[in-house]
């Protein structure tokens, strides 16, 4: 029993001691909230994730690539630039100068990228207009079709229709 316990303890100690040998290092340095906030506007360029540098939490590259090898130094760089008195825009610009526009987490609202922002709104507005147009056309069609289809049958008064509708509602709902 004691031997078993000792073995387990030794295995645990060995395992714990061996950790640094095969685990990729990861930093736990304090990053300012401001740097994280700016980092959330930059895409993590590790090539293995589609997260932002501010939100990236790949633990030490155990996923497909050395993600924190990019996100963490980037956040540290942002902190450094902020300490030098750079503004948010200047920090972002320095990353764009280094990596190109692909470093933006979301397309900038200028130039060709503006298309990405305009498109969804345009779809929604255009789609709504089309739906409203279709509905109004169908409503008109209905109005124009009613007299023709009822020409051969006895005319039905609006009061009668309303009563019939109410009765149908009453019968179908409770």
């Amino acid at each position, binding site marked *: 029993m004691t031997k078993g316990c000792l073995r387990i303890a030794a*295995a*645990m100690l*060995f*395992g714990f001691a*061996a*950790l*640094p040998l*095969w*685990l*990729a*290092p*990861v*930093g*736990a340095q304090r990053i300012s909230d401001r740097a994280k906030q700016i980092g959330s506007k930059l895409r993590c360029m590790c090539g293995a*994730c*589609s*997260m*932002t540098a501010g*939100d990236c*939490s*790949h*633990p*030490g590259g*155990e*996923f*497909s690539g050395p993600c924190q090898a990019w996100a963490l130094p980037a956040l540290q760089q942002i902190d450094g630039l902020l300490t030098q008195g750079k503004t948010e825009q200047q920090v972002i610009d320095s990353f764009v100068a280094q990596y*190109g*526009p*692909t470093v*933006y*987490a*979301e*397309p900038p609202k200028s*130039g*060709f*990228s503006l*298309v*990405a922002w305009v*498109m*969804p709104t345009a*779809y*929604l507005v255009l*789609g709504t207009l*089309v739906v409203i147009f*279709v*509905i109004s056309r*169908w*409503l008109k*069609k*209905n109005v124009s079709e009613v007299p023709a289809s009822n020409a051969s049958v006895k005319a039905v008064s609006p009061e*009668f229709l309303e*009563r*019939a*509708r109410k009765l*149908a*509602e009453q*019968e*179908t*709902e*409770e």
Partner: protein
Amino acid sequence: MCAVYAVAGGIAAIVTRHPLLIKSARHAGMATCGLIFLATFCLEYLFFTDNFSVAYVASHSNRELSSFYKIAALWSGMEGSLLFWSFLLAIYVLSVLITYRNKNGELMPYVGVVMAGVQAFFLLLNNFVESPFKALAAAGPDGVMSFITRPDGNGLNALLQYPEMVIHPPNLYSGYTGFTIPFAFALGALLARYPGEKWIHLTRKWTMIAWMFQSCGILLGAHWAYAVLGWGGYWGWDPVENASLLPWLTGTAFLHSVMMQEKRGMMKVWNVWLVFTTFLLCIMGTFLTRSGVVQSVHAFAQSNIGAWFVAFMGITLLVCFGAYVKNSDYLKSENHLDSMISRESSFLFNNLLFLVACIAVLSGTLFPVFSEWFTGSRISVGAPYFNRVNIPIGLLILFLTGVGPLLAWRKTSTESLKKNFGWPLLIGVVVGAVAFTFGFREFFSVVCLTLCVFVASTILLEFYRGAKVIRARSGASYPACGIDLTMRNTRRYGGYIIHMGMVFVFIGLAGAAFNRDVQKSMRVGDSMQIGPYTLMLQGGDSKAEQNYTAQRMIVEALRDNKPVMMLFPEKRRFAGNNQENGTMVAIYSTWKEDLYVVFAGMDPETREPVIHAFLNPLVKWIWFGGVVVVFGTIVALLPNRRSVLVLAPSQQPAGVKPLPHAVPSSVALREGHD
């Protein structure tokens, strides 16, 4: 060859209408399925017998890999996953061919040809482009190539060695492949000018099954990302995730708009094109996953087969367009509306929102490619963009989920609006106001919560009203009456259950705005605080398993100084030639929040373990919602216990004259609520 014969023989059978030729083409279709099953079982046999003379087996398995994961190894790479696609499609095709072997004689030859055509394309890839049966060979000293057998394989990708990865791809693939069936029926019916709405009735169940698998696959993938990747999130708007969402959005739109055709004979053209689009988006999803045209974290199975998919999509689109142009008069609908405020209008807006969401996600996913074409530089479109664009659309869809089902067909009266929506709206607004007062200050989260309560109230009110009527007659308890009610009209109430499931999913999504995280390098005995929890590192150990060695941390979670759970986040190093690492997150999950703990690695300076803890509110509701959605779909697939037409005496209010030439008073038609 069988599939080619099924296509060619099927076309000949359609032209000649020879009964033996029709039968022969059908049998060729069945034989194709049988041969695909055989090929799939052969590949699995090669995995189970560790046959490392086959390149695919050597690349995706190793001797130590457990049998459970040797099944999953089948779809872990490009070649195998394409064969697996054919395998699942064959299950659907065989089921259809057997189910309708003596029915719908006019339509089935067309359907058979379309299904066999799709199969032929994938078999072309399986046989000539990405064969999983290629043998390993190496050049000898004399330069002559000879077959070789490796002593062991590379092993399975570490990320795939997780139980959910064994069920996530089959579910998702079942969704993708399942949409082939409604596509085949829609195109077949259009080509055959098959009369009436019968193809809609025939395909409803197949569409729902495919939709259920797709939903299940998406949520299982989200759970896998959440529990395995260790980045604390479940949805990152990765192109491959988006690709799975696209056909789901159009498929959902179709499941709703199809009711317009069934009930009112409207939107025939729209429905046919929705089915075509859904199928094309399934192929597009596979194209995006496999071609590497967009950068994705899902780089498990990529090669240069994109051109094949583009060609197939092009041919499919041409066939669909040709069939539509030739037979468009067959799709003439009697589209007319009685009122703007009606079920029909709500379906139109529902379809609009699903389509806008679909196009927004698609264009956002492909925007980096477009920007490269137009400007020469690739502009990234990440999660912040997709969240910003899709959250408002999602909330509008949620709103319609509550409103749409309670609007009557043709016209909804003001009294009915007040009766159906008065209380739910009030309850929703009150809950939203209370949440805001208690610090729930994120705008979209408050709106989402308000809408969730509103929609849940409308659904519960519907169940309550229906159960009350049954209870008045039978005297049974409310739950029993609720079950009775559901079984009388499974489609309607199953649909409500699905909507309720989606409400739960949205509740979970609303919590994401309040996620918190903290990371600390810790020594044994150190503690850190996250929300109401204190995490104390108690130690660490290592354990050797069959195919991996795990290094784990022992972290005690305390709340108010009382221990709640011992958590074991770990890192795994897998056997095999690649020696890959994997992460296992430890999660303490409650209905309020998830305490999510990751063993992040070792601090490079202090050499101490780094623990990364997240507090993710309401996540459990997402998985629960998924279960409810699947349950609701199963309910909706069940046949009704009784006819929807209820023959029961109805009360005639005193003082109201009977209507001339109206429906007999003994019959209460329950139209308008499916």
